[in-house]
């Protein structure tokens, strides 16, 4: 089969300028076959060539045997959201072959295992076929069955290296690093890469019109998943207690914390650990432990996903009412119920914002990059202790489990932990009578004591029941109301402490605005560029926290129409804004995506332009 070199069409039918550093490759694999590390090798080599690249794992809720896809977008312009339209598909899963063949854009490529003849049903006139006899090559070159399976993956990476003009040296370096200490595994891997590369060189015209060229765009950027960044952030923030219950996609947050703590939290003289990590019996116990530890003066956190947050509701209400610091990292996935556990969504917003019965509100932070995962996790421990309340970090599966190009993590060695209003034994000496819920500073935030501080002063009875300023039980309606009002005052104080939103322009200039948060950021930024190219200029704001501070309110008020981009069905952020800022919901126009895959720029542009165009017609 010959390769044609006709121009590359974009997913929307428009012709892209160039296929250089600008394409999407999708790998169709069977999970549990070792494809993940081979695919990662491919991505990392492109990253090492200084080119922005973003991989997405699209995987089933299954351990072995079901189809799994790995989608890599290469974008010279640094667009790191997902893009529709597959330029080249590596088809090594017979189970999903039909759908995989169909998913390739017209004019695109299909790399397949040509050990067996491809069935007629998989032949399309409008795509190019690159047959590599992967299985035969493995059988000829390796005897061990497991190796035969594993090296099939490495061979196709070698083939892609030739097709895309990936620097072979980068692949070699990566293998050297990967097998440090197990050097004898390196030659077999190199051989597999070469098998693939040589086969392409002998049989096809290469490189393709789609290919990579070395750039120096990335500078000191890193390629990291958000969950690792959260875990490292917790280490840096001084978290000493982590209690958790395994749940996809949050599990790797605590695993990362555990890994880094294993080396970074060891007392050099005793060999003991400056950390306690407990796998709890369920999410209820996990948050209970965090609250117990927070009450007792340790920095504590848990990580979970939607179903876990549901179970934690009761305790979150207690922590809100009893005013106990706690950090919860919610890596959102597709709900409701078990939903699609391995797909992404931003659908826990309402659940988290108002978690628990009665009048409760919780502080939410919305990171959108690994660096922000690190920063916000670290900041959340300060906020939790300053405000004596739970802080929930709202990340998602896409950010948490996929690698993202990010600014490097940074730490200021002069930074001190903000431990909030805690009275020491000396402080207590100077006080006539300690009132745990006394609003001394008129900011709604009372002073607290750790158990065990002073022999005669500072003890109090923490409870979820109504109490007076001295933590004494009362059912006096006025006392209850005063306390609830003070909690609202604290909420107002929080507005000045939480992260500020990011405005994309110095002053609001256009009639319409876009509002977004979290992982939609990548695609919204791309969409804004696309619209600009079409002559549509639009102001933008990225929300990073709840409660919303005044900038958010001002932004919405100063625009006629605000498009709210979110990845859920019910427009939860729009609802939250309408409720909390008392804004006319008709002014907020939802752009939603809830198929479990990350939102794309194309979708956003279409929704916004359609709306704007329709309105013009009405006029």
């Amino acid at each position: 089969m010959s390769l044609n070199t006709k121009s590359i069409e974009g997913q929307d039918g428009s012709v892209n300028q160039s296929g250089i550093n600008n394409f999407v490759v999708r790998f169709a694999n069977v999970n549990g076959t070792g494809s993940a590390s081979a695919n990662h090798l491919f991505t990392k080599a492109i990253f090492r060539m200084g080119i922005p690249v973003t991989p997405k794992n699209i995987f089933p809720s299954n351990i072995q045997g079901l189809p799994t896809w790995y989608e890599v977008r290469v974008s010279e312009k640094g667009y790191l959201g997902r893009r529709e339209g597959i330029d080249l598909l590596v088809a090594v899963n017979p189970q999903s072959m039909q759908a995989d063949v169909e998913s390739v854009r017209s004019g695109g490529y299909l790399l397949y295992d040509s050990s067996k003849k491809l069935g007629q049903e998989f032949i399309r006139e409008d795509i190019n076929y690159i047959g590599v006899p992967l299985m035969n090559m493995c059988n000829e070159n390796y005897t061990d069955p497991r190796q035969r399976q594993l090296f099939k993956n490495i061979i196709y990476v070698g083939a892609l290296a030739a097709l895309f003009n990936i620097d072979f040296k980068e692949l070699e370096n990566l293998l050297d690093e990967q097998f440090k200490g197990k050097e004898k595994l390196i030659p077999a891997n190199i051989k597999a890469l070469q098998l693939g590369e040589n086969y392409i060189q002998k049989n096809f015209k290469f490189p393709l019109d789609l290919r990579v060229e070395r750039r120096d765009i990335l500078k000191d950027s890193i390629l990291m998943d958000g969950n690792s960044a959260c875990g490292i952030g917790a280490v840096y923030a001084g978290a000493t207690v982590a209690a958790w219950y395994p749940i996809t996609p949050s599990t790797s947050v605590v695993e990362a914390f555990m890994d880094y703590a294993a080396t970074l939290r060891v007392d050099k003289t005793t060999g003991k650990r400056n950390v306690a990590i407990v796998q709890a019996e369920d999410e209820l116990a996990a948050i209970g432990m965090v609250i117990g530890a927070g009450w007792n003066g340790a920095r504590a956190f848990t990580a979970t996903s939607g179903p876990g947050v549901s179970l934690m509701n009761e305790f979150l209400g207690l922590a809100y009412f009893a005013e106990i610091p706690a950090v919860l990292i919610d890596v959102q996935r597709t709900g409701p119920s078990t939903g699609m556990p391995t797909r992404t969504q931003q659908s826990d917003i309402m659940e988290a914002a108002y978690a628990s019965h009665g009048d409760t509100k919780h502080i939410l932070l919305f990171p959108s990059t690994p660096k922000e995962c690190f920063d916000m996790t670290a900041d959340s421990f300060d906020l939790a202790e300053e405000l004596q309340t739970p802080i929930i970090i709202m990340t998602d599966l896409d950010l948490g489990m996929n690698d993202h190009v990010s600014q490097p993590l940074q730490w200021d060695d002069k930074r001190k932990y903000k431990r909030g209003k805690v009275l020491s034994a000396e402080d207590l000496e100077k006080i006539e009578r300690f009132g745990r819920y006394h609003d001394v500073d008129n900011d709604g935030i009372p002073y607290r004591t750790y158990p065990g501080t002073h022999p005669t002063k500072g003890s109090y009875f923490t409870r979820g029941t109504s109490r007076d300023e001295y933590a004494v039980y009362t059912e006096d309606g006025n006392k209850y109301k005063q306390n609830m009002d003070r909690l609202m005052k604290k909420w107002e104080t929080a507005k000045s402490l939480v992260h500020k939103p990011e405005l994309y322009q110095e002053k609001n200039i256009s009639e319409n605005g876009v509002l977004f948060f979290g992982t939609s950021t990548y695609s919204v930024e791309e969409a804004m560029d696309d619209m600009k190219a079409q002559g549509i200029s639009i102001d933008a704001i990225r929300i990073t926290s709840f409660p919303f501070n005044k900038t958010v309110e001002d932004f919405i008020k100063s625009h006629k129409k605000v498009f709210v981009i979110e990845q859920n069905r019910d427009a939860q952020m729009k609802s939250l804004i309408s409720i909390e800022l008392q804004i006319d919901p008709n002014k907020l126009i939802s752009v939603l995506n809830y198929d479990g895959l990350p939102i794309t720029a194309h979708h956003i542009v279409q929704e916004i332009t359609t709306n704007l165009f329709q309105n013009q017609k009405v006029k």
Partner: protein
Amino acid sequence: MSYVRPKFRHPSLPTNKLGYTVDYYEGSLSTLCAGCGHDSISASVIQAAFELNIEPHRLAKLSGIGCSSKTPAYFLSHSHGFNSVHGRMPSVATGANLANKDLIYFGVSGDGDTASIGMGQFVHVIRRNLNMVYVVMNNGCYGLTKGQDSATADNGSKNKSGQVNPFESIDLASLAIELGATFVAQSFSGDKTQLIPLMKAAIKHPGFAFINVISPCVTFNNNVGSTKSYDYVREHVEATSTIDFVPQMTEITTSYGEGTTEKVKMHDGSFIQLNKLSKDWDPLDKRSAVNAIMSAKEKGEILTGLLYMNPDTQDLHQTINSSDTPLNMLHEKELCPGSTILKEINANFR
């Protein structure tokens, strides 16, 4: 029930080694029903803490929800307290203990709080051998919601409205032994001479110490036909032994008859001295403890006293090898790896 506690105290009330009189260990006035077994248990906690010379601020009292869980307000008012959510005290106690291993953790729960809604957490806190005292004030019913049967109500026991409980009861003591609790005792709220030394030993035990105290509910479960009424319990209590707790450094002076006395040495050098009333039972042997409970049950007796103990125990902090300094006392210096290491971490992601 009186609403004002008399201020008068006998001028020559004895003081403990810290110079405190027993009233220093009291709490606020109980709001439980007059005659409630739980108030006697609170009184035992007060006496035990007084006799052990505990500095109240070095003890944290935790509870769930229910009548029993209100009691931490009625003892040790100079201790920090945490009245958490229904059935979840064990997790809060676990977190608190992880944060600061140097305090004494005294948990109070009820039979509803432990044997029903909190069964999951009860089971797992035992598995982890958290260093705490866990007292269940067991009255076989839900007092605060007016007398429904609980999971520890005996099969065949009659409630106040005359209904007979058709379900099997959960035996918390044998369950605790089964799950690996390293100190398991049973007692009766009306028997302070037994309960106080048991509490003292439990506090000194360096792992999970469980005391199931039968504590009759005077209002909802004190009727004829109830197996948790005062009369029934008094008639059916069968003690394994008399018990003395002998603190560290104190010479043992009491003597018992040959072959019936057993001294159990505790971790800190204290002793529990048992005058055994039952021959076939060995408090250091799980199997004999479970047998003793079961045969007592078959005879319709409630076996009390120390049932089982493993003095050589490893608590959760030892298992996870946490630092000698309580975790809540560590600072940036010990906790934050700093920017140089972060640069290395970044480098691994390039």
